[in-house]
């Protein structure tokens, strides 16, 4: 069965520091890969997605993610974190057909 693992439940970084959120998936083929962000009291906003092609994808708000097939990973990165980036981040995979499987989420706190 397909699954998504986000190993870090909670991460705290200082404002201006770099960020990397980990995501590993289990699936027989290359799935469609997504990162969403959920700010407190809000719905989910799509940050970026990977379907095929260039394994480094750029998203909104200065985020990027790199697909590594050999590691079954799709880690999210940002070179310099802003206080407004504090939120819950969800990695998700889709084998196609509309089914979306989410990881448990990583809560990001930003220290001033």
């Amino acid at each position, binding site marked *: 069965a397909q699954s998504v693992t986000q190993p870090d439940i909670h991460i705290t970084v200082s404002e201006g520091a770099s960020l990397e959120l980990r995501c590993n998936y289990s699936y027989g083929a290359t799935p469609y890969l997504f990162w969403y962000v959920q700010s407190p009291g*809000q719905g989910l906003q799509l940050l970026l997605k990977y379907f095929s092609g260039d394994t480094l994808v750029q998203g909104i708000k200065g985020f990027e993610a790199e697909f590594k097939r050999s590691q079954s990973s799709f880690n999210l990165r940002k070179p310099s974190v802003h206080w407004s980036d504090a939120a819950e981040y969800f990695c998700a995979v889709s084998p196609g057909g509309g089914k979306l499987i989410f990881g448990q989420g990583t809560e990001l706190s930003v220290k001033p």
Partner: protein
Amino acid sequence: SAVISQKPSRDICQRGTSLTIQCQVDSQVTMMFWYRQQPGQSLTLIATANQGSEATYESGFVIDKFPISRPNLTFSTLTVSNMSPEDSSIYLCSVMTTDQETQYFGPGTRLLVL
């Protein structure tokens, strides 16, 4: 991407009652989905709302508890029936547009059952 609205945005309900949540999209979409996010948890797909036919439910979710309608390409409802405190969650609808395989989410409905 589509603009998605949900009503109500939040509600407090008594156990044993039912609540219907509406999801409206500003353009025609190919697929609509309903998710549940229990407190402190990730999102779990409840069902796919099919236009003009019965919804397709995921394992663990049944039509009697979560009846879903989708009368047209821009609107769907989810009813949470005979509620108990365990139904306290955020319920989100999502849509898939012509940008296939990409889902966009509504703002969610925050439900508290007492």
